[in-house]
């Protein structure tokens, strides 16, 4: 047993942190927040040059063939930097869907381009308010074509490829379909969300050509969400740590009643509580990364655990970061808002805390019943 990333993986983390500190400083996030551009295209190209989109894609599809430990480390740094690029949509969702469940033809067609970042992929599941499930999904696949409306779709306005959850008209089962967005039947409406640094869209599909991924629908969707949950969890871990670090620095600099506010127990205990939650998320993240890499039978439980822990840590850290800053933290001018927005966005993508709590306890219930 060994409960630490390897030296090479830790070096990669340092390298990623340094790279993003240089190419994605807070000023770049602010530019993305203020501008109408859907994402930081220059940063996307630079990250592609680093090969990060290609991390776990096998060499036969133009990838680097590295492990999920490397990807977890990169995800952590993406979260820390609040990177305004479609990395999670393209890598944790679209690429993963094809890698794990795509047909050979789909993989050959899309993975090399996803790996080099020349194509942006995403995943379209929700159809408006409420938890999507077989009863609520109306997007339908029939006779090779797909129709329906999806919202919100992260990076839906810029994606070249969308993995869509739709019902197979014949079986009425939810399945995954690959849709090339360069078709006239795909219409996109830009969507305003609370995180202006990441773009979203409503996607309308009007009898567009779609190719099914593997047939076994619901378990495939759940498995894809599990995998993505671990990686989103690592983004949340990085984000939560960045917010804690910012709060800590401010608490050291800001004086009230003649001394640093960080010397008051009210602030100390708050930040200790943030640290404790972050630490729980990180430790659960280790197990999640291992379960993902080793294809553990425990993956669903491990993923749900890191997801719940990541949501809780990142929301708490970003909320208390603003609180520690007082009024300045509530201004547009201060950077606290980056973390606050992104944490709330990440808490909703691939399912809410309640959804993952439910999934987590479903696993505990099942394994406990199996023992009894």
């Amino acid at each position, binding site marked *: *047993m*060994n*409960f*630490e*990333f*390897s030296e090479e993986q830790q070096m990669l983390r340092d390298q990623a942190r340094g790279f993003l500190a240089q190419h994605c400083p807070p000023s770049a996030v602010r530019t993305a927040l203020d501008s109408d551009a859907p994402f930081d295209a220059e940063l996307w190209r630079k990250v592609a040059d680093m090969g990060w989109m290609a991390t776990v894609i096998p060499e036969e599809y133009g990838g680097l063939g590295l492990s999920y*430990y490397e990807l977890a480390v990169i995800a952590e740094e993406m979260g820390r930097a609040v990177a305004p690029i479609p990395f999670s949509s393209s890598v944790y969702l679209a690429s993963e869907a094809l890698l794990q469940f795509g047909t050979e033809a789909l993989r050959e067609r899309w993975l090399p381009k996803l790996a080099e970042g020349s194509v942006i992929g995403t995943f379209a599941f929700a159809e408006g308010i409420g938890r999507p499930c077989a009863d609520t999904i109306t997007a339908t696949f029939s006779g090779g074509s797909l129709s329906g409306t999806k919202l919100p779709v992260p990076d839906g306005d810029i994606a070249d490829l969308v993995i869509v959850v739709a019902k197979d008209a014949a079986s009425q089962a939810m399945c995954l379909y690959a849709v090339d967005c360069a078709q006239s039947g795909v219409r996109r409406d830009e969507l305003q969300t609370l995180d202006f640094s990441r773009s979203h869209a409503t996607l309308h599909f009007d009898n567009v050509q779609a190719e099914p991924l593997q047939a076994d629908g619901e378990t495939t969707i759940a498995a894809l969400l599990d995998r993505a949950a671990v990686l989103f969890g690592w983004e949340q871990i990085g984000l939560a740590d960045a917010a*804690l670090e910012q709060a*800590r620095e401010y*608490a*050291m600099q800001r004086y009230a009643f003649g*001394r*640093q506010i*960080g*010397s*008051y*127990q009210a*602030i*100390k*205990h708050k*930040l*200790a*509580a943030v*640290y*404790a939650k972050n*630490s*729980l*998320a*990180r*430790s*659960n993240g*280790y*197990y999640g*990364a*291992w379960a993902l*890499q*080793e294809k553990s039978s425990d993956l669903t439980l491990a993923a*749900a*655990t890191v997801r*719940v*822990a990541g949501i*809780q840590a990142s929301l708490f850290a970003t909320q208390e970061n603003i609180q520690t800053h007082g009024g300045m933290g509530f201004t547009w001018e201060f950077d606290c808002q980056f973390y606050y927005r992104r944490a709330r966005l990440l808490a909703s993508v691939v399912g809410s*805390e*309640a959804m*993952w*709590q*439910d999934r*987590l*306890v*479903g696993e*505990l*219930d099942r394994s*406990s*019943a199996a023992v*009894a």
Partner: protein
Amino acid sequence: MDFNDTQDEARFRAEAAAWLADNVPQGEEIAGLTRLEFARLWQKRKYDAGWACIGWEPKFGGRGATPIEQVIWDQEESKYDVPSRFFMIGQGMAAPTMMMWASAEDQARYLPPLASGEEIWCQLFSEPASGSDLAALRTRAERDGDAWVINGQKIWTSGAHYSDFGILVVRTDPSVPKHKGLTYFFLDMRSPGVEIRPIKQLTGESEFNEVYFTDVRIPDSQRLGEVGQGWHVALSTLMNERAAIGEGGFSVGVDMAVRIAQRVMLNGRPAIEDSAVRAKIANFHVQETGLKFAGYRSLTAMSRGEMPGPENSIAKLIGAPKLQQLSSFCMDLMEMAGVIWDPELSLEAGAVQMAYMGAPGLRIAGGTDEILANIVAERVLGLPQEPRMDKGIPFTEVPTG
């Protein structure tokens, strides 16, 4: 990263499991024994077979096992209901302190019987006027030739009534600032002038004691560290303490909550199907596994020769309130019958009620939640200390009340 055993680790685990299966005392062998007698029987058996304190060097009674092997052993041993808490202070706190500060002769004399359970140790730190502010302790030690004469009072001393030896911090110089006037000793609890009075806790048990010292003589050879260096030595004990206590050996965890929620009905369905119940169980699970894996990570750090650091303070900072909340939640699952504390009638033989009643002590012992939060804030995050009224002034001039 690898959460699975290597081949060597799997072999070690199999060996440990096989030995445990053949040797854990049960049935008639333990009939009529007190928990302490059972604990001594088990500890000695482990010691004789080389399974006690396995991480210690062989010359101290261990087998020089790695931290990972220690975890494997703990995992296997925890599958059995065997007592261990009587030795926690001695083996978990006194022993590491002795290994760091005692002479080779004293290590050879005292560590093996600590490992075998033949001698039990207690910790004499807290006083009525020095709890969280431990360095404000007042028990005096005055030099008299080759010995020191101790007068004063300690409190909250777990197991003093069955302990053979104790580790002790006392004030040797009240004329200097408080941290600088302390010195650390170990002593024979049967020394003349030591008087032990039990304290009845809110659980009804009497695990704690007051310990009074009246002209108790301790040879200078039983001093650990230099005169005036007691605080420094005490910190090395406390760091091990927080790593050792964690959730305090209570068996109430998420698995028990799941069992109860599966069994108890809520609105005509098993409670575990209720979404509010699920949300709470999930949150406890996040804490439980998070602490478990954080502990594993610190083991990997220790395997590389690092000391347990202040990061380990979260084990108790999270673990103790979690025990309190989880046991309260389990009682809520039982609805009105949750209050019944009767081994015959309660679910899980009353373990839930026992945990709830014990939890307040756990949140205080070995550093309160508040002190641990300060440690995390100051020593992990590097935040400044609060201004202290007693800083830099002689102990005798510190305001008291």
